[in-house]
């Protein structure tokens, strides 16, 4: 029998009807195609670059940039190098994306919960917000905030001042900036210690509960420690920083710090747009936890707060977190629309100005894409780790 099968196999051998043969042929063909495509692109590109006299390599990164950037968190002047400009753009991208992620998540959770409110009016307003925001292109929203809201603001002399110390004008928003004094370090240490103490209380309570079954109001105690101790330190040790209020003098504002209108428009647009998508994710996540779970928890005698914290939220988060991460990644990638309103992010500075000046399209675009690709891949790697941890354990 076995011999016959082996003979049969040998007989089919190298025929087209053998799936193994077909598989090898298909794969070899695909690899050959990919290699040929790659070779074709590389050789034509080399020929084109030689013909057009375009330099290659990353040597240009050390050359002097020669252009200014309106917003920079690290020292940068026109004499800095292209590499420095790249760094400035990258930091600006990370800054607007980082702040946007925090704000969009908060607003998104808020709207998502409002959408499920039993109050008819609240849920309808949340619905209208979501449907308006997510069906209008982000770029259009950015144009709206930038060109029709922020640019037409009055000149610095006639700044609007809705709150004491905050000024709105067509050069941006000027707000008081904190100045850290001698007590700042002491205050920072107190905050850090109270965080550690709060965490220790949580751990100790969990350990005691699993050992003895006794419940300790750990969260309340921890929050009291984390908020209360620094408050006491503030009260007795004095304020950890003083505020430097801006004042209009001569040609501009003295003191305070200025947020450029491009930054505010981009932040507003990204936050409001992404929050609409996050709201829908949060709503779906909460709805995905079946009502029976809540009822079972009540039947076991868990109070409402603990039901929410121990039963509903962990299960909802399992549904919410993966699409939420992909929305936050979208926000980061969408921050590249900055180029349309001239916020100096990575794309605007590097793939815009630097590309125009050096003409080295391949290096510049490849590096820009590599940055976003790295952010995406690292995030999805972390996401997979999280998913493996929270996945339902089946058999």
């Amino acid at each position: 029998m076995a011999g016959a099968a082996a003979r049969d196999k040998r007989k089919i051998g190298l025929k087209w009807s053998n799936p193994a043969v077909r598989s090898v042929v298909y794969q070899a063909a695909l690899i050959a195609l990919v290699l040929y495509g790659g070779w074709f692109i590389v050789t034509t590109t080399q020929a084109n670059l030689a013909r057009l006299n375009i330099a290659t390599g990353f040597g240009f990164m050390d050359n002097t940039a020669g252009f200014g950037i309106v917003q920079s968190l690290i020292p940068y002047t026109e004499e800095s190098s292209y590499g420095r400009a790249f760094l400035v753009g990258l930091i600006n991208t990370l800054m607007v994306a980082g702040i946007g992620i925090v704000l969009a998540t908060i607003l998104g959770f808020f709207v998502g919960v409002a959408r499920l409110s039993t109050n008819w009016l609240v849920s309808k307003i949340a619905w209208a917000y979501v449907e308006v925001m997510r069906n209008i292109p982000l770029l259009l929203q950015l144009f709206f905030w930038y060109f029709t809201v922020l640019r037409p603001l009055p000149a610095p002399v006639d700044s609007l001042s809705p709150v004491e110390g905050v000024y709105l004008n067509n050069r941006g928003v000027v707000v008081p900036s904190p100045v850290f004094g001698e007590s700042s370090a002491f205050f920072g240490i107190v905050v850090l210690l109270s965080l550690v103490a709060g965490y220790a209380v949580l751990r100790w309570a969990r350990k005691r509960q699993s050992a003895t079954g006794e419940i300790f109001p750990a969260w309340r105690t921890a929050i009291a420690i984390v908020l209360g101790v620094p408050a006491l330190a503030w009260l007795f040790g004095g304020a950890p920083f003083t505020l430097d209020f801006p004042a209009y003098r001569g040609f501009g504002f003295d003191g305070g710090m200025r947020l450029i209108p491009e930054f505010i428009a981009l932040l507003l647009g990204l936050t409001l747009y992404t929050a609409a998508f996050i709201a829908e994710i949060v709503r779906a996540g909460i709805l995905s936890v079946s009502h029976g779970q809540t009822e079972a928890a009540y039947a076991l005698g868990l109070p409402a707060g603990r039901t929410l914290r121990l039963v509903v939220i962990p299960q909802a988060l399992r549904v919410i977190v993966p699409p939420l991460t992909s929305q936050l990644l979208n926000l980061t990638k969408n921050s590249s629309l900055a180029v349309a309103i001239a916020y100096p992010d990575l794309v605007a500075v590097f793939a815009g100005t630097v590309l125009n000046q050096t003409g080295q399209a391949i290096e510049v675009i490849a590096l820009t894409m590599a940055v976003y690709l790295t952010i995406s891949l690292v995030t999805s790697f972390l996401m997979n780790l999280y998913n493996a941890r929270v996945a339902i354990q089946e058999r």
Partner: protein
Amino acid sequence: MTDMASQIQKPREPLSIGRGITWLRKNLFSSWFNTALTLLSLYVIWLVVPPLIDFAIIDAVWTGASREACLGPDAGACWPFVWANIDQFLYGRYPSSEVWRVYVVFALGAIGLVPALIPAAPAKRFNLIFLLVAYPVIAVTLLAGGRPGLPAVDTSYWGGLLVTLVVAVTGIVISLPLGIVLALGRRSSMPAIRLVSIVFIEFWRGVPLVTVLFMASVMLPLFLPEGVSLDNLLRCLVGVALFASAYMAEVVRGGLQAIPRGQYEAARAGGLSYWQAMGLVVLPQALRHVIPGIVNTFIGLFKDTTLVLIVGIFDLLGQVRSQLSDPNWSVPQGAITGYLFAALVFWVFCFGMARYSAYMERRLNAGSRR
């Protein structure tokens, strides 16, 4: 038990003020917290809605021949600006003697699309083949021209809603089949095919569309041999289509994962080839599962078409922006009017797609609903 009995015996309350008050009490004023929320909501509505209606309708200028009409002290939206430029918003600088071609393409699209969307309409297969295969060919031939009787119209003259629709439809028509192939490739048992699919998908999903368009406009020309040049719009179409395919592939993969392996195995055991098993058994079920995801990708693609203005192609939004710099219509509220108009157009398209997808989802789930 008692609940049910009382429900059966109690006749439906007639529509009355009393019932309205009960509803209000239950939904808006059930507790002090709820009442506070209601009042806060009313305040928010009062802040947003009346000014918007004032600006867009009551104080708006509806007729006029030039900017003077919109210069009143409290004038709202300047709608004559939109009327005066409606041709540009529809098809950009397309030569006026050839505009009939644009209208024919729009009309053919509507004729193909409307019956395709109505489930009861007959000849679905023929209809879809017309829409996905014949229509794009006819549309390109008509719009680009370059044949006897049809003078060529360079794509640099195309603009407005025409370009928005061309980019979106191309993206949709290419991304769906390519996405399906990529999704199948990613689930293939052949390692080389799987690897190529994964790398392709993850690359396009990992980078922003803006950089893809930059790549299409500055890097792609370097990849082509000397003498071969691609039109600017065509380059962007390539970028958008590849970008959309990767997203489509992930949506389709989700659907494929929801189909039990037994379906495929049974189809193969029944003597179907791989492509028959996929095309006749697995994909019809998988795609039905992910119709909402597919439509969401379409909606995203439709909104993303605006990005082509960054590389100098005038889609609807780009055209609105370019008409705003027209000195004949330079009024303070011109920009808001233009953006309001563009937002309305995009909103109608996207919201319409979303509603249609929700309707289809309900229809397709009718069988599995109890």
